[in-house]
């Protein structure tokens, strides 16, 4: 369990090459493609962080917008006082704290309650933040002035995405990952083996929430003006669920398969048919349930398994394998 397998080394090399190539992008374009790529990298970070928790536990979290907004707000509130990296860490910490509280209240009970609770969470936090701002006599919005260009934000977001992947990989190799695999098989057996299933889910939800909060913090300088309705927009939560499930959550890199095409589609739809985004989101959910229940990746693996099974049966394949 300490040695790297050949397959893991190959994936690491491919990943490193892909990240290096992605990091070169701002050199070639600072306009439309950089903006689009930043969105893709943003959703890659969000969806992979979401999958860290929701993949093994099968809980559908809609708390993404709440964590993300808290991250953005941490930066907006502190930008004049504290250095940016501290604020990103603070954004992650605040989001993790919220995740811990939500998890402690809901994860011990049933999955439906968790979905319902997270469904309104972003709206709840938005109400509380707005109310506090009004009470304190501050204006509704906050200005975020930094020296960061879009390329800087892009690089930071790329680094965060790499960190999410690295964390996910470390988890699969740890006791935590093994425990999750057991819970995924049979939660009752897991408990009788001595696994504290409730605490484990909370810890995992906090890790996932922290990364989402950091993503929100990193993106904050992109909007020079932050106000509650935009920072806590619930749509983000739903987009993350769709993209992750479209790709497939059985593997860490599964969501990527959904992120890239769907970000491009959403970019197109919101530019051409801004009023019809709910319809697209609705159809995407129905497509996931009825057409791609295991995501694109699951469908591909199914196909491959079927091919492998049918191959020995076909005489041509058997003949080809025999030495001439």
């Amino acid at each position, binding site marked *: 369990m300490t040695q790297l397998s050949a397959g893991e080394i190959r994936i690491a090399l491919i990943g490193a090459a892909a990240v290096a190539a992605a990091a070169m992008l701002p050199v070639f374009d600072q306009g439309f493609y950089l903006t689009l790529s930043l969105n893709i990298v943003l959703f890659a970070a969000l969806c992979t962080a979401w999958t860290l928790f929701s993949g093994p536990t*099968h809980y*559908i979290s809609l708390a993404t917008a709440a964590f993300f907004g808290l991250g953005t707000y941490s930066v907006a509130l502190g930008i004049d006082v504290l250095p940016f990296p501290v604020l990103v860490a603070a954004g992650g910490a605040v989001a993790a704290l919220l995740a811990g509280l939500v998890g402690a*209240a*809901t994860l011990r*009970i049933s*999955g*439906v*309650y968790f*979905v*319902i*609770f997270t*469904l*309104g969470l972003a*709206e*709840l936090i938005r*109400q*509380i933040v*707005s*109310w506090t701002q*009004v009470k304190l006599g501050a204006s509704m919005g906050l200005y975020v002035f930094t020296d960061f260009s879009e390329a800087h934000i892009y690089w930071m977001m790329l680094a965060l995405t790499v960190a999410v992947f690295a964390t996910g990989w470390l988890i699969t190799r740890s006791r935590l990952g093994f425990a999750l695999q057991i819970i995924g098989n049979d939660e009752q057996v897991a408990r009788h083996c001595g696994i504290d299933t409730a605490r484990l889910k909370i810890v995992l939800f906090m890790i996932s929430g922290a990364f989402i909060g950091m993503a929100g913090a990193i993106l904050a300088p992109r909007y020079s003006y932050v106000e509650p309705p935009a920072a806590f927009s*619930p749509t983000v939560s*739903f987009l993350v*669920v769709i993209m992750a*499930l479209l790709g497939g959550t059985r593997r860490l890199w599964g969501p990527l398969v959904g992120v890239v095409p769907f970000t491009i589609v959403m970019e197109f739809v919101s530019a051409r048919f801004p*009023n*019809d*985004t*709910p*319809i*697209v*989101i*609705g*159809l*995407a*959910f*129905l497509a*996931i*349930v*009825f057409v791609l*229940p295991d995501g694109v990746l699951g469908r591909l693996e199914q196909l491959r398994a079927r091919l492998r099974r049918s191959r020995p049966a076909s005489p041509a394949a058997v003949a080809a394998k025999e030495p001439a």
Partner: protein
Amino acid sequence: MEILVTGILLGGTYALIALGLTLQYGVARIMNLANGETLVAAGFIAFWLFTSYQVSPLWGLLVIAPVAFAVNWAIYVWLLRPLVDRAKNQGMLEVDSILATFGLLFLFQGLMLRSFGGAYVSYTFLAERFTIFGSPYGLNRVVAFLAAALIGASLWSFLYLTRRGTAVRAVAVNPHSSNLVGIDVAGTAALAFALGGALTACGGTLLSTFYTFNASMGVLFTIKALIIVIMGGVGDVRGAVLAALILGVAETSVASLVDPGLTLSATYALFILVLLFRPQGIFGRQQT
């Protein structure tokens, strides 16, 4: 006192909406997250009937309820039953139905945005004063409460006094044994889902007589209804009514004593209390 009466008047309508959801979740075992959209759609139709044809919302119920019944029945039979049939266990069905009804939520929302736009809508119906215990209240709220009570009472008589109603309650307790004693479980589930949709639509129609709404508000009502259902205990009619009244009063108190912008916080505070202390519902027994 004023808060209490206003809260109870509001709670009456909430109860109807929550009864709809508790029928859908408790009997058909589908967590319908598009429930709020049914409500908003009913409100829009009532608005349209009233402003274009001067049809009173109370007469409008006679149109809206059957339409909602038919649409929800079709949704259950064509869209959700295949999921019920393919699910290997309760957990899978839960995830599938949540995702599918999310799809419906956004689809309906998008269609309503196309048809009615995103603006807030309200109309003036029975906006007269009505005095209870010396304080004035909107007559529309009082009428909505009475209508809700009437519909709730007819639901109760259906569930407790008729054969079909008894079948519905039996399936809520145990679908498997119901099947053994010769109840058509699949048919009863479809009936309950459709009936639930119709009740929610009635709630939406009544709510629209005194409430300002828009096309993207459905989710908030879904959350409220879900919290009422959980508070009352899933499938528990008595509990849902009591929980709806509690939520109505709690929201009205927060809105008038603290800040109208914090009503959702009141809802969530109740939710957390229930989750921590009585996750099985107010009247619920501990599950085995």
